Structure formats: structure tokens, C-alpha cells
């Protein structure tokens, strides 16, 4: 973490040294694509910055359709923050055009390549769901903070302070996750969900992550896969499986029935947030709350006595 912080201070120092672009007191109009980015930017940005998310908190980025007002907002923005890594596939062309004229920050691509998980060995594309690992999200926060302070050099002290406290929360969240999941035995460290969105969670907390369906949205599970997973659940004595906020729960419930028929008691561990955050205005509607919810839900489902209302005692129960 220190490395990151030092890099950030260095960058912001460089930004101060550079001729200042923004006039003092000028506000900045930022448009973010997904809710996770907008929430992170809100945590870091100084008071006079307007931040807007194109996608509402509960909206799946894969299914989003931009409308005219979204395009207008993008062309009017002083800074566009997007996730990148092909998450906003439907907007790639639009960003390519805007990129020549507008500052666009691909915040998700700030995560170093060696930390990214490719889809498979042959694939040139990386899994975009990096927000599942709060440690990696520090890179994203870092990129947003440097960009903000280069735009608002006179506010860099405030930005730097906000950034530091946000990163502190991220580290606390990471540690909280390690703490509550520490007692889960190696054999039980399996996260089974409807589709493959939790691989960064898996690599961060040493879980085997399995999805019933592949990554592609046109993909459909075969019966072979279902039976295979049922065998695996029984073999490894997995206690709980999870549904996702943005996926139908049918396949997961089929697994529960399938294992029940063979005398294994598989619980529905609860609902996890995968591609979209909780409702706006709630704790789960923030990035920290979303990850807190996921960590706490997973831990409690696997039999750990984690605090019911999560790290910050703010989860809705």
C-alpha cells in the first residue's frame, strides 16, 4: 500500500509543479459509467465536483443501453471515468470517438497487468470484474485521485486526504475479509455462483470459484455441467451456494435440489452483488457496502460467526 501512496504523492507533486490547467474555484463535471466508479470518485473528490453515474446503482453494465441524455452528458463532461477491460462493450465505439477530444480515464485498466486474470491462456482479454478484490480497487482509486488532482491542482490537498481515508477503508475491508474468512478450512473454500464473476474474489481470499455458466451471456449450462457440480459439492462437502443480484437463480436452486436428493444439505447462502450495487441511498448502494455485504454473506453462510451487520455495522438485515 505504501508503494501506491508514494506513487500518488509523487504524481500529485508533479501535477502541482506543472502549469495549472484549472482555474481556482472552478468546478469539475465528471461522468462515470458504472456505479462503483461513481461512488469511489465521490469518496475522493473535493466538494465542488459534480459526479454523475450513467448507470443507476442496480443496473447491470452488460445490459445497459445508453440514451441521448447519456451521450450528451458524456460530450459535456470535463472528465469521463470508465472501467475499461471491455466491461462497457456497447460503448467502446463511442469512447473511441470521444477519446480524441475528451480526457477519458480507464480506471479499471490502472490495475497492473500481472494482477489481472485472463479469461483463459489463449485469450487476449482480461476478466473485468476487478472490484471484487478491494486491494485491486486501490489501484483504481489511485488512478482516479491522480487524475482529479491533475485537473484540480489547487484542491490536491483535499483530494489527497480523501484518497488516504478511502484507501484506509479499503485496507480495513480487505483485512476484515481475511479475518472473518480465516477460520474457513481449505477444503470448504469454494464459491459457487450462477456465472463466473467472482474470480478476483477467489484469488484475493484463496477460494476456488466456480460458475454454473461461462462468462458469455449467450452461454447456457448443459446437464453434464450441473451433474458435475453436484458431484463436486458432495465430494468437497460444500455447505452453501449463492445467487447473484443480476442472474436468475434457477440453476443454483437446481444444484440445491440435486444435492438434497443425494442427502447433502446445501444451503442457499444468500444473494451476492456481482455486476451491480444495491439500491441507491442504502449502504449496499456504495462500493464499500457492496463488498462488505458480499464478504459478510459468504462468511456467515460458511458457518463463520461474522458480525451480522458487517464491518461498519451498517448492513441491512
Amino acid at each position, binding site marked *: 500500500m505504501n508503494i501506491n501512496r508514494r506513487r500518488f504523492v509523487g504524481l500529485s507533486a508533479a501535477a502541482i509543479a506543472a502549469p495549472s490547467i484549472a482555474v481556482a474555484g472552478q468546478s469539475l463535471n465528471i461522468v462515470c459509467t458504472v456505479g462503483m466508479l461513481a461512488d469511489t470518485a465521490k469518496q475522493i473528490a473535493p466538494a465542488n465536483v459534480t459526479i454523475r453515474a450513467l448507470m443507476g446503482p442496480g443496473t447491470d453494465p*452488460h445490459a445497459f*443501453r*445508453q*440514451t*441521448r*441524455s*447519456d*451521450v*450528451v452528458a458524456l*460530450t459535456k463532461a470535463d472528465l469521463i471515468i470508465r472501467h475499461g477491460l*471491455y466491461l462497457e*462493450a*456497447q*460503448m467502446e*465505439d*463511442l469512447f473511441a*470517438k*470521444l477519446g*480524441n*477530444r475528451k480526457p477519458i480515464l480507464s480506471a479499471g485498466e490502472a490495475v497492473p497487468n500481472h494482477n489481472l486474470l485472463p*479469461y*483463459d491462456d489463449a*485469450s487476449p*482479454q482480461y476478466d473485468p470484474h476487478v472490484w471484487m478484490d478491494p486491494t485491486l480497487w486501490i489501484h483504481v482509486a489511485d488512478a482516479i485521485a491522480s487524475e482529479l488532482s491533475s485537473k484540480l491542482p489547487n484542491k490536491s490537498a483535499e483530494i489527497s486526504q480523501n484518497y488516504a481515508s478511502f484507501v484506509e477503508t479499503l485496507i480495513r475491508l480487505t483485512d476484515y475479509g481475511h479475518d472473518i474468512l480465516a477460520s474457513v478450512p481449505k477444503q470448504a473454500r469454494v464459491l459457487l455462483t450462477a456465472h463466473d464473476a467472482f474470480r478476483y474474489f477467489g484469488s484475493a481470499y484463496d477460494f476456488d470459484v466456480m460458475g454454473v*455458466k*461461462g*462468462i*458469455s*451471456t*449467450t*452461454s*447456457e449450462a*448443459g446437464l453434464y455441467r450441473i451433474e458435475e457440480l453436484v458431484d463436486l459439492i458432495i465430494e468437497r462437502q460444500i455447505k452453501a451456494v449463492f445467487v447473484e443480484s443480476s442472474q436468475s437463480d434457477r440453476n443454483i436452486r437446481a444444484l440445491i435440489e440435486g444435492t438434497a436428493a443425494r442427502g447433502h444439505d446445501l444451503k442457499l447462502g444468500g444473494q451476492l452483488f456481482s455486476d451491480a450495487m444495491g439500491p441507491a441511498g442504502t449502504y449496499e448502494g456504495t462500493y464499500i457496502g457492496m463488498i462488505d455485504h458480499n464478504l459478510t454473506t459468504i462468511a456467515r453462510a460458511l458457518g463463520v460467526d461474522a458480525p451480522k451487520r458487517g464491518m461498519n455495522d451498517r448492513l441491512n438485515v
Partner: protein
Amino acid sequence: MFDDFFLISLVPILTGLFSALSCTLVGNILVLRKQAMLSDTISHVVLPGIVISFLIFGNLGPYFMLVGAGIAGLTAVGTIVVLRTYTSMDNSAAMATTLSVFFAAGVLMIELTLGGNVHLDVEHALYGNLESLIWIDGKSLMSIFDPAARQTIPVELTRAIIGFVLIASVMLVFYRFLIVSTFDQTFAEISGVPVGIVSASVALAATLAAVISFDAVGSIIVVAMFVCPPAAARVLTHSLRDQFCLSLLFSALSAVLGYAVAGYFPILVGFETSISAAGTIATLSGVILACAILYSKRQRSYDFLDGHQT
């Protein structure tokens, strides 16, 4: 405000307009041939074409995809003809069979070759978004005469215009063949009209119009523009020429008005964001169709026969 028009609105309006007009032109013939659902069939059958072109070329560049989708569309039309020749299937059944089999084949190909582990997201790979077609250098009317600014006009607009010109000119040239073989196939055949070639050309034109429009404006409005304006014109007139003219008018009206309504209406009534232009265009064409039907009913009640006396 006005430079915004060239930056944000001009190209989407024109692209929507020309795509809609191409679809409506071919749609007139499809509606008369009772093949209106061909447009929806094409939207389902392109999947294997795209998967195959992805497997061969390894990427989803727009031209590979257009070619892949076009070939899949034509193969599907061939399959429909074969099914109709060798079974008792009507058009509807042959299309239903073809679209489900092609789509299933596409899904199987993805699973077997790519293991589902690739972001081959057809929804986004093939289907474009009308609102995103901004003209980054479009500042004013003068930008049109500025060669450098013209460079940044989205290629989708160029393709939509070329597609429209191509379809319109082919239809003009083959107008007589088209009409006579649609009206009375037996008679066309003995008069020496190459009926098979005409049918294949109609299918080709439909595929061309559909695939170009998918890429530019998305799949939703394609079926709507194929069907609703010709249907609305059809209930209002008995003359083929009037039908073509009215349907093109309705189509243009839906496209331009639909974009404007989607962009401004929600904001005028106090919402923060716009709604989908493609969806609004489709809905609007449906409203026009409904009005046309209701209007023709009122007409019919008193001058059904006399009104057309010469």
C-alpha cells in the same frame, strides 16, 4: 445548442432515417409476399454467421461480421426454400424451423469451440446503438464542407446511405418483375420473369437492409421498420404507388420524430434522462399503424365502395 445538433443529433437522425427507409422499401414487398417475419428470422439466424467469422478471423471487425451475418442470412433463406419445397411447411413454419435451428447451432458452436469463455456478446458485437453515432468534429453546417471534419462522420451513416441507394435503385430497375411475380407467380413464370432470381434478390435485399441496420441502429427497430410503415400504408390505400410513398413517409416520420421524442420528451416532463431512441421509433411506428387502422375503419363505414369509384 446548435453546435450540439451537429455533434450529437445530426448523424443519428440521418442514419436512423436511411436505415428505416431501406427496411421499409423491402418491407413493402415482404408484407405483400406475406413474409413479414423474414426480418425477425434474419435477426436470429445471424448468430452462427458471426461465430464462424469470429472463429475464422479471430476478431469481430465490422466487415467480417457484416459478411458473416450476411452469409448466414442468405443460407437461412436457402434453408427456408428447401424446407418449403420438400415438406408441406408454410412460410411461417419454415422460418420458425430455420431460426431455431440456426440459433441453436450458433449456441452449440460457442459452447463447443470457445467453451463459453469468451466475451462474444452478440447483443453488443452486432447490434449498434443509434445515440452513440456522434460526429465528433461536427460543429456547424460548415463542417460538412470541411474535408477534415468529414473524416470523422461515422461510417455507419455512409453504409446506411449506400445501402439505401443500392436497394432503391435495384428495386426501381426490377420494379415490374418484382410486382408481377409477387402478384401472380404462375403468370410471371410463363411471361418469362425469372421468378426464382427475383425471390432470391428480395431475400438478398432484406438481408442487406437488415444487417446494415443492425450494425447502425440495433435490432429492435429493424423489424418494426420492415413491417409497420408498409402495413399502415397498406390499410390506407389501394394503390401500390401510394403505398410505397405513404410507407416511406411514415417510416421517415417515425425515425426522425422517434429520435426527437426519445431525446427530449422525458426531459421536458421532468425526468433526468432520455429513453431509448430505437425503442421509441418502434413504438411510434406502432402508434402510426394503430391510427391508420382506426382511421381506415371510420372511412370504410361510409364510403367503402363509393370512395374509390372513378
